[in-house]
């Protein structure tokens, strides 16, 4: 994973095109399609996650340097982030309170 992996300009252009495609896809889906709200939300979140991966791999070179440790720490961050966001929404918005 060292010298031979000189990221080229082409590599960066690929990343850029991908990120543009994902952005406009999300915009189009959100505003101009008749899908249900839940489905739209799911799809745009998935697209955002792909965007993040594009940035991480094509621009941030997450696979260089202390590759494994970098990926593990970033993934742990995302694990905690998901706990925080999903947990808060579950508790604060979706919970039925004591409704009996």
């Amino acid at each position: 994973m060292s010298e031979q992996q000189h990221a080229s300009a082409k590599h960066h252009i690929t990343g850029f095109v991908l990120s543009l495609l994902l952005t406009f896809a999300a915009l189009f889906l959100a505003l101009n399609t008749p899908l249900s709200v839940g489905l739209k939300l799911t799809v745009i979140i998935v697209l955002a996650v792909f965007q993040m991966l594009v940035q991480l791999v094509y621009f941030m070179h997450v696979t260089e340097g202390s590759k494994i440790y970098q990926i593990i720490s970033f993934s742990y961050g995302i694990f905690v982030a998901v706990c925080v966001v999903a947990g808060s929404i579950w508790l604060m918005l979706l919970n039925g309170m004591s409704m009996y």
Partner: protein
Amino acid sequence: MLPLRNGAWKWLAVAGMMMAILSGCEPVKMGVLNPKGPVAQKQYDLIIWSVVLMSVILIVVFVLFVVILVRFRASKLSKDYEPPDVEGNTFLEIVWTAIPVLIVVALAVPTVTSTFDLEKSPSPNKKPITIEATSAQWKWIFKYPEQGIETVNYLKIPANVPVRFKLSSHDAMNSFWIPELGGQEYTMADMPMFLWLEADKPGKFIGRGNNFSGRDFAKMEFTVEAKKQSDFDSWVDHVKKTAPKQSEKEYKALLKPGTVDLKTYSSYPKSAEVKEPNHGGMEHGGMDMDHSKMKHEDMEGMEDMPGMDHDKN
């Protein structure tokens, strides 16, 4: 040099502690360990079950601990004793992982079932009474919507009847707790919640605010009296006949921070009613918000959420 080396002091101390714990068991017959209703009883049973399970672990570890300490103290071993060079024992480690798993399961099952049970009326076939309990700095206001009366800092309930407390707060969070009748629930200003309690027999208890709420929090005690239904009814009649009506202004004055004595009113103003809670943790009561702009119409129960501007419903 203290005579500590011989260990006598340590055993003395341990024995003293055990005595203290054991002797402590006698006068404890109050509060949580003195359940006087089905809710408290259920929680009491769960507590005792957990104590039994935990005691097993405590005893096993304490015995091992003492035996190992006594057996393998350097001063008791021969000078040339060399500890063996072991790294672990997979079988033993599996055993002491598996047993705690079993113990946790044994506790988790009744925990989950009770958690669901406690959300329901403790006596579903009896007609419940609803009482609104509101905490304000630093007093408790009890409203009886079915009877139309209000008391401050004391509570009377019919015995043998499930009581559905609707809990709310005027300002700081608090927690409504009558240990003899059952566990507590928070009172919150933006989120009314329900708590089921029931007294088996007539009796007197002490209830209290249990979540710190500022200066005179320690004074937020109230007396609870469970009366026979007929006695309760005649008390209500008596209140209706003799107690003063509560004006809007008096109610507002009551809510101001400070402590007050026991009070009784034969009525309370409309603004004092606790609004229905709503699903999804959305705000309600006392807030002017524009529900038409909310987005989650598809969310269950959102439609009939009575906020301020839905009062006409």
